[in-house]
């Protein structure tokens, strides 16, 4: 065989060359492959949402092949015995057939639902990371706002999704949403009539939200996600402060091969976790809810967790109805449901602008802040988390009351008081903890590390030996600047102890020769 010119040219390289000749790919690919990403575990949280979304598109496409959003009345003759002979809509019947008679259908349905919960949960966790580290600051406010919109589009997309099967629980959810819509002053009844075509979700609404669920909202989500990720590329990823890291560079790994390999591995891992949950944990057992009838409302009728805090607010809010008879009634549900949701959309959207205004900080920030270094913002964030958690727990307060033998009335009142008091307590405690952590950082920088070695001087005084982090002055103090990154707090962080063994199940490092010799001495061979 004739030896080719330039033996290092593999077939792949040659194919790449041919492609480049035609499509001019080398330039953009080089830029892409050499793009640098900083490495930190907390930067991977958004990816969970991204990869869940891809799985949602794939599993949703499978489900759409078998689900029929038809409200034609049929009599069930399928595989599930307790529903045989029951009148139901074709939508519910096809969801049952999809679960019991399509091969792998139930698994795909459960995977779709678990992926939804993971999508929304990871958006929340990712948002907390962005908030607490100040990553939303200029120049990234737009991307923060897009992220907030992604959450709310996902919120309604999820709600529409679990409303589709027309089972007892989803019909109850639609009815509650209808009541919330109708509570809006002046336009409420008309809006409700236009969207739901009647007081109880009837024959029109399912086919309408089907097309929103499978086409319009996924398209909006896809567009927003594309812009979201593109902006991360264009504006570059934020990074933690640290050696060699400034506001004007990015220290990390190249996209290819390091980052791509990690991302692909992470994606497969996420899909694996979702698949494992779909196989192990039953979710949304629609066959137990039965077909939707207006008179059927089960106890423990909760929405999915991302809607649950709103449900909790509705449960906690007192029955304060505002009336101007006979012209006008403002039902109590308006305040928690519509005003509450409106504020939940609006406040996060404008938060970056508010912070800019109140701190008068107009600079560009590519370096992140540790949560302790901005105690005001951190405490505000914890306050919101506590508020949300009390709301979400109150959304399931009947389940809590029943399972933990607490009076439901006591749960409601604990929620009412807690949702006002606990965020304030949380704000104060978080603020103090942040200041304490800051102070400890400064203390270590000034006095050195605590070694754990206690000494007693001739006067009888006990003291702990400190290891200074630099050459101390005559008072034993070190003048070190805090640079916004982790200060070592333990001696083994500065090399006092040998590094821990590497390896997952057993050490992957060979014992040193001295070590081997010692083993022999200890075993009595010498």
């Amino acid at each position, binding site marked *: 065989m004739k030896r080719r010119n330039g033996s290092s040219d593999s077939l792949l390289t040659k194919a790449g060359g041919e492609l480049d000749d035609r499509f001019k790919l080398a330039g953009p690919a080089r830029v892409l492959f050499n793009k640098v990403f900083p*490495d930190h*575990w*907390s*930067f*991977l949280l958004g990816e*969970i949402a991204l990869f869940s979304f891809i799985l949602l598109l794939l599993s949703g496409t499978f489900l759409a092949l078998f689900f029929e959003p038809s409200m034609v009345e049929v009599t069930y003759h399928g595989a599930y*015995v*307790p*529903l*045989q002979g*029951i009148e139901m809509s074709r939508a519910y019947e096809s969801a049952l057939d999809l*679960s019991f008679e399509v091969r792998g259908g*139930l698994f795909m349905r459960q995977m779709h639902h678990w992926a939804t*919960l*993971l999508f929304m*949960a*990871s958006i929340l*966790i990712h948002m907390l990371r962005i908030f607490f580290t100040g990553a939303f600051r200029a120049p990234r406010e737009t991307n923060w706002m897009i992220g907030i919109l992604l959450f709310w589009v996902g919120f309604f997309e999820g709600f529409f999704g679990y409303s589709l099967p027309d089972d*007892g*629980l989803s019909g109850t959810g639609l009815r509650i949403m209808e009541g919330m819509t109708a509570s809006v002053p002046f336009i409420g009844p008309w809006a409700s009539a236009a969207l739901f075509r009647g007081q109880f979700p009837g024959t029109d609404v399912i086919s309408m939200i089907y097309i929103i669920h499978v086409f319009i909202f996924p398209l909006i989500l896809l567009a927003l996600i594309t812009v979201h990720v593109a902006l991360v590329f264009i504006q570059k990823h934020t990074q933690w402060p640290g050696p060699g890291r400034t506001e004007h560079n990015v220290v990390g790994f190249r996209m290819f091969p390091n980052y791509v390999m990690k991302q692909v*591995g*992470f994606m497969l*891992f*996420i899909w694996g*976790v*979702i698949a494992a*949950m779909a196989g*192990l*944990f*039953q979710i*949304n*057992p629609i*066959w*137990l*809810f*039965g077909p939707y*009838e207006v*008179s*059927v*409302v*089960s*106890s*423990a*009728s*909760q*929405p*999915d*967790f991302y809607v*649950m805090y709103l449900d909790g607010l509705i449960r906690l809010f007192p029955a304060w109805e505002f009336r101007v008879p006979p012209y006008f009634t403002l039902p109590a549900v308006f305040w928690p449901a519509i005003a509450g949701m409106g504020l939940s959309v609006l406040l996060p959207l404008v938060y970056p602008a508010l912070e800019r205004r109140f701190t008068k900080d107009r600079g560009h920030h590519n370096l992140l802040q540790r949560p302790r270094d901005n105690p005001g913002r951190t405490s505000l964030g914890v306050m919101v988390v506590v508020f949300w958690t009390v709301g*979400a727990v109150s*959304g*399931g307060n*009947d*389940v809590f009351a*029943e*399972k933990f033998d607490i*009076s*439901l*009335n006591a*749960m409601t009142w604990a929620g009412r008081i807690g949702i006002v008091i606990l965020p304030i307590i949380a704000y104060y405690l978080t603020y103090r903890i942040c200041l304490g952590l800051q102070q400890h950082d400064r203390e270590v920088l000034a006095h050195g590390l605590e070694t754990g070695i206690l000494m007693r001087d001739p006067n009888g005084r006990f003291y702990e030996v400190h290891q200074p982090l630099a050459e101390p002055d005559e008072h034993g103090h070190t003048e070190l600047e805090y640079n916004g990154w982790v200060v070592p707090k333990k001696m083994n962080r500065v090399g006092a102890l040998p590094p821990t063994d590497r390896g997952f199940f057993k050490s992957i490092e060979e014992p040193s020769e001295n070590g081997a010799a010692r083993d022999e001495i200890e075993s009595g061979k010498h």
Partner: protein
Amino acid sequence: MAASAKRRRGWRKRLGALARFTGALVIVGGLYSVFSPSLYAQEAEDNAIDSEVVKGQELYDTSCISCHGDDGEGIEGRGPSLIGVGSAAVEFQVNTGRMPMAAQGAQAPDSDYPVFTEEEAAWLGAYIEYLGGGATVPDDLEALVENANVGEGGDLYRVNCGSCHGYAGGGGALSSGAHAPALTGVSDEEIYQAMLTGPQNMPVFADNELTPEQKADIIAYVQYIVNDDRDPGGVFTLGRYGPSTEGLAIFLVGMTALLLTTLWIAGKS
């Protein structure tokens, strides 16, 4: 002497009258027994019931009377009257360990260790039945449940029972500390007794609201979803409490696993 002879003659006269009266009684009684033999049988049965009633009353007077009062008349603020509640109510409350109640509370909790045996509960039931009648479980319940329609029962369950006991019999909270218990591990008789008599906060589903056949349908459905349903969709049902435990699971299982993964992946550089 004449007086004493006269007295003796009087005695004889009286003894004769007594003998005649006794003879007449024997004749009438004999005739009665000949013409109505069923009365004796009835009396024998009454005696058997009486012995159960008496045993029931003995138990009642030691364990129930402090709240439900003399002869089941009830005591204001302590316990309701039991006249007319029937043996079905008594046997349900006693056999599930709800009665005797350990303490006054929002609701008598059920217990796995009832104070009385089933036989003693039947005696108590007989006593309460004796006081004022009331509802009883039909003898052919087993046959009714065997021929029941599970699908029909599901429909009835969702309309009548699910709003408190939950879509899958997991139970649910009611106001002020009361609750509708989970329906796991209950017998057909207990479900029937509960529907018939409406214990604690439960409404009464009398036979003119749900016929015995419809009650049997509901029993068949409850036993199906609680025992025979092979839980399609997973090894774990998450307690069938609906989306609240699903939300907990996504954070405690899914999110936790993936957060550990992020630490692992970011650590491998």
